[in-house]
């Protein structure tokens, strides 16, 4: 079995053998769509111009990091020996989780890159708690994001709270979600992941490594790209049709402000390296509400949801997003109450 066949969905072979749908049709559809858009005066249609601009802008910024994540995942698969993962997997779970939670300090990937890397770590036998913890913590607990958060809030009285609070919340939510997801993943492992583990170990043992690296990078990239394209489309539509200014109406309502900021982060799908610069302007919101945005966004947003479905399957993706949501909400409400008391 090859890496390309892993990426091929079940039933594809049967469909191909029936020859029902010629493979050139999708390309013709895309070219027709582009021709139609060229014929329309896009800038004159405000919503269409905005949708296309945000869609393309999000992809231009994020897709290079998806490729980097795919290459890192492929390198883990091809160049790290099964013995090394065996030793790591035999370490006590708390040690694995603790190491994974700080993995972003040595592998500073943003959220688009952490998903394929975590998926590969799962495939190589790292305990699910550690792999999920890495996936969620790395986009927050990494030097680039810590610096950008400091830059956004520097000079304010809340500077220390925002930087330290973001790291602490990110770590806590990632570890809690990792532990909850570990149980679920052990009870019902993702079928595709299980199948792939066996065959890919064979590759690692016998194949031509540069070729395997290229194959795995390509398969991983296209596999994630599918969900990135869908997620970016949904994010662009939400950004186009939901006015951001509507969020201001709940700024003064303590209990509503935190979930509202989380929903805002989910819809916007900002990169974790720039979200602090954006949210720091929302001075009408409390620090706890701003932290809810900064902790939740890099773990759950529109484009990530689509990528989680691709990496873990719909049931696990749903469970992960619910766990992240509930944990963030509880922690931020507690923080809000603590700040009022202090």
């Amino acid at each position: 079995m090859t890496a390309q066949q892993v990426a091929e969905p079940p039933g594809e072979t049967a469909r191909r053998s029936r020859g029902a749908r010629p493979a050139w049709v999708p390309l013709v559809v895309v070219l027709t769509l582009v021709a139609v858009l060229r014929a329309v005066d896009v800038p004159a249609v405000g919503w269409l111009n905005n949708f296309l601009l945000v869609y393309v802008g999000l992809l231009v910024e994020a897709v290079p990091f998806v490729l980097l994540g795919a290459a890192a995942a492929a390198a883990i698969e091809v160049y790290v020996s099964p013995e090394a993962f065996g030793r790591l997997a035999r370490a006590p779970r708390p040690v694995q989780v603790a190491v994974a939670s700080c993995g972003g300090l040595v592998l500073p990937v943003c959220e688009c890159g952490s998903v394929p890397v975590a998926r590969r770590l799962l495939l190589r036998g790292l305990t699910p708690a550690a792999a999920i913890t890495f996936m969620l913590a790395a986009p927050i607990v990494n030097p680039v994001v810590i610096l950008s958060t400091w830059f956004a809030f520097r000079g304010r009285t809340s500077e220390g709270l925002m930087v330290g609070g973001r790291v602490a919340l990110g770590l806590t939510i990632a570890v809690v979600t990792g532990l909850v997801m570990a149980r679920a993943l052990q009870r019902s492992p993702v079928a595709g992941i299980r199948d792939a583990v066996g065959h890919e170990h064979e590759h690692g043992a016998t194949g031509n490594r540069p070729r395997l690296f290229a194959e795995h990078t390509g398969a991983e990239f296209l596999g994630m790209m599918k969900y990135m394209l869908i997620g970016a489309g949904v994010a662009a539509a939400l950004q186009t049709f939901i006015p951001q200014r509507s969020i201001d109406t709940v700024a003064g309502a303590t209990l509503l402000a935190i979930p509202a900021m989380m929903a805002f982060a989910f819809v916007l799908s900002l990169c974790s390296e720039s979200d602090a610069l954006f949210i720091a302007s929302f001075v009408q919101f409390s620090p706890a509400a701003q932290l809810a945005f900064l902790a939740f966004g890099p773990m759950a947003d529109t484009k990530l949801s689509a990528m989680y479905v691709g990496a873990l399957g719909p049931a696990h993706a749903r469970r992960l997003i619910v766990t992240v949501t509930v944990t963030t909400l509880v922690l931020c409400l507690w923080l809000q109450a603590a700040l009022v008391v202090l």
Partner: protein
Amino acid sequence: MPFQTSAVLASWAALFVYLELSGRWSEFLAARVAWIVPVAAVLFGVAALGQAAVALWGGRSVVTWSGASLCAAGVLPVLLVMAVPIDPLSSFAADRRSAYSSATFASVAPPKHGESLTFQQLVAASASAETRAALADRAGEAVELVGLVTAPDGEGFLLTRFVVACCVVDATVAQVEVRPAATGPLEENAWVRVSGRLALGSDGVPRLDDASVEAADRPDPPYLYPGG
């Protein structure tokens, strides 16, 4: 399907080369992340070559429906940028985006005597008492700004720029009220150069009075950056 994967990667490499050579990256990204464009061009180019080599080694592979669909979808954003005219953010976004606040960026310094006033310094006055006080000392001074015409009415319009921290997704709106010396038809979304007299409203928020308005080319980059 290494050949199709190679084609998708090559198309993205071509897109980043195009964005770099044409300078159109500034329609999507902020200057601080402009490094992504040349780096991505190289990365995607190398990855495309790697996939092409795999395709040559691996012999003929069958093109599947799902594979072809994914590749076509992967190439679509590239074609959108290169073949479809898309304008930078405009009045549609100005109505929906959050307002830029100087509080975001401590590096927006209050104006000093002798220095030209910037768009962001005027906008910063809505959130910074220090900036309002500095502007009050300079009321009546001539100011020249470039921006988009939005929300025109009988008395004036809002001169609008977008402030981008990373990419257009995080853009916020910066606006200054303009009251032209002569009333006339103003086209929404037109780029204009405004020369007016700095005035302060009762709330200390600045506007430009007795302004002359003339058409201007779209600035490059079209967006402002935090603190800049």
